[in-house]
């Protein structure tokens, strides 16, 4: 039996949350996100610079000796919670979590690995891990891309999140010696930008054929990739929590103001009960998300269980919160003008990201010894 995870927020984490919120309140209200999503630059590079460089968020997970903040998954989770609460279009998840965790699983004594991590931590480079956003931990190493002995790649990777904002890709590819990770300059890669369901997290289809990658030395590239996907899944729960909390807060606020039948709509018991149920799901989601973040941070022996529980639960809560918010907003929630749809689309896409709730339940069944019928 492992000890109970620390499910609270530390003072440092509360300060971090306040700092990120301050920046976003100034620079990135949902109306600004909405105005940008259909432009050629859905990302806000200046906002990312402030978050990555001035607040040092790009290097949160990077140890201090490699130029980072030496923080843990707990702090990264708090950042994602705030970013989710604004559907903020910055590549924090793709670069500072996914690509960074994959690189930390490589040989960080290697000068090339250390240099890349240093640039990412400093915010002078931004990276993306070249896997589909739907890739899940616990699966086989991807075989979509192959590498020859010279590091020349063949293959395509589709639906890569945050690649649009990246100048460097970390590409999992099967080389002559088996699974490996390769550093690729984004400028060398022809990329197509499909129309994404979630406009605030653009996707890219990368054609890597003929592109030369620099091998990133690692003892176990498959383990490094899996750790990145596990971390992504566990921390995504905090982003989903942020989405759900925004939907709940916004709906409570709206129902407290809107009048129909000569009454505040929020005084009708049928609506209050729906919001009370939603509130309970959101506070439960917070416990699950904090559990996953703390387990990732502490290296708990049951981290796989904590992450699967968080994804199986919180992903669905975010979707339900957005769907309830839409219904309870009535007609205004159906309009493009209202930012609610950004959160619905983020929640629905996040449900697929790093594996669906059903996939995590299936994985959990194996992990906790509750086998499906044979």
């Amino acid at each position: 039996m492992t000890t109970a995870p620390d499910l609270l927020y530390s003072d440092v984490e509360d300060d971090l949350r306040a700092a990120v919120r301050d920046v976003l309140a100034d620079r990135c209200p949902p109306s600004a996100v909405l105005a940008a999503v259909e432009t050629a630059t859905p990302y806000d590079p200046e906002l990312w610079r402030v978050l990555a460089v001035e607040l040092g968020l790009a290097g949160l997970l990077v140890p201090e000796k490699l130029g980072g903040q030496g923080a843990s998954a707990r702090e990264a989770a708090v950042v994602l919670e705030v970013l989710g609460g604004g559907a903020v279009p910055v590549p924090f998840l793709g670069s500072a979590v996914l690509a960074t965790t994959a690189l930390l699983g490589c040989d960080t004594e290697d000068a090339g690995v250390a240099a890349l991590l240093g640039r990412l931590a400093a915010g002078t480079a931004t990276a993306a891990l070249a896997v589909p956003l739907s890739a899940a931990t616990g699966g086989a190493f991807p075989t979509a891309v192959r590498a020859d002995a010279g590091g020349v790649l063949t293959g395509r990777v589709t639906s890569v999140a945050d690649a649009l904002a990246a100048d460097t890709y970390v590409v999992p590819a099967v080389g002559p010696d088996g699974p490996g990770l390769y550093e690729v300059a984004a400028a060398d890669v022809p990329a197509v930008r499909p129309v994404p369901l979630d406009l605030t997290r653009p996707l890219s289809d990368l054609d890597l054929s003929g592109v030369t990658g620099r091998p990133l030395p690692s003892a176990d590239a498959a383990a490094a990739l899996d750790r990145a996907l596990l971390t992504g899944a566990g921390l995504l729960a905090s982003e989903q929590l942020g989405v759900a909390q925004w939907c709940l807060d916004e709906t409570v606020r709206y129902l407290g103001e809107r009048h129909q039948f000569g009454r505040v709509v929020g005084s009708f018991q049928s609506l209050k009960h729906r919001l009370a149920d939603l509130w309970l799901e959101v506070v439960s989601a917070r416990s699950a998300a904090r559990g996953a973040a703390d387990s990732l941070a502490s290296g708990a022996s049951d981290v796989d269980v904590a992450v699967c529980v968080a994804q199986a639960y919180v992903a669905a809560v975010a979707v339900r919160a957005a769907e309830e918010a839409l219904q309870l907003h009535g007609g205004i929630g159906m309009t493009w003008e209202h930012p609610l749809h950004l959160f619905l689309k983020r929640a629905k896409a996040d449900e697929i990201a790093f594996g669906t709730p059903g996939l995590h339940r299936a994985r959990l069944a194996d992990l906790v010894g509750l086998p499906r019928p044979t």
Partner: protein
Amino acid sequence: MAAEKGLRERVRELLAEHGPGAMEPLDFLRARFDAGLAWVHFPEGLGGLGLPRTEQAVVDAELAAAGAPDNDPRRIGIGLGMAAPTILRYGTEEQKSRFLRPLWTGEEVWCQLFSEPGAGSDLAGLRTRAVRDGDDWVVDGQKVWTSSAHNARWAILIARTDPDVPKHRGITYFVCDMTDPGVEVRPLRQITGEAEFNEVFLSGVRIPDAHRLGDVGDGWRVAQTTLMNERVAIGSGQAVPREGGMIGTVAATWRERPELRTPELHDRLMRLWVEAEVARLTGERVRQQLAHGAPGPEGSGLKLAFARLNQQISGLEVELLGEDGLRYGDWTMVRPQIVDFYGRDAGYRYLRAKGNSIEGGTSEILRNIVAERVLGLPSEPRTDKDAAWKDLPR
């Protein structure tokens, strides 16, 4: 840390002077109370040391390790969780020194006379009357859903003392002697076959004014203390291990009986397993908040979550059992002292869990409380708040 060290020392002194093996359990419990180690957050002289509530865990762990007898808290839960904090807050010095020690040691069992057949969710509408007669009050009425009434020495009671004012303002809070000849306790058989609860009929019961808790007409406020402490007691329990609740029972059946497994049941099992684990984590989070002295609103939601989960999990369990689910352990009418979900069969769990969303505040009332007190939504328009109780339609 110094305080904790002091506590451990006190426990060791207690054990040295009153070796638990060498004396009657009751004498040991009395000595423990007198040493201030009963409930350390109570004041000195009343079984405590005026320390934070969280320090109690230190004492309990040390005494459990030494094999000391405890006061069987499940048997006296109403006294410990509801009566004691209310007496502490509103009682006179005489009341505190008379009632708290035997309450804690379990010598005197307490029950709660709040709900009535006509006053469930709308508790403040209660109609049991208390009329002043010299130094006494004379009480007539009927109470219901009273656990432990047949074992109880004392009851906490709320009764209407002024029907001419709005309902919340005409209630007074008393300590009622359950041995009074006007008290009649009848078992109330429930759908499980047994009778955990009772109906209590009060006919000309005399209560000395010295057994009133709080001011005349202030009983509703006093009762809020009782009910709030009930919720704190729920939230501050021990850490529960994974699969520690009802889900563990179903999971064990699943593992032991592969022939019962179907894909559809597996899907539902895993959904409930996840929800049970998340509810466990939320309980743990509430516990950690309390330990840091910063209770959050999550506690109010936990009962809602556990009620639904217990019902769904026990329903799944009966279904999973297939042919065995057609049978029931025993419908014999008994009067158990405690509720034991795990000592009985799945059918019992299924039926008993139905009460989880009714007892201690229905899930519907709890949703109102969350919506109004946590989310700040307005209450439904009401007509009963300012009218005199006697003029309300019924």
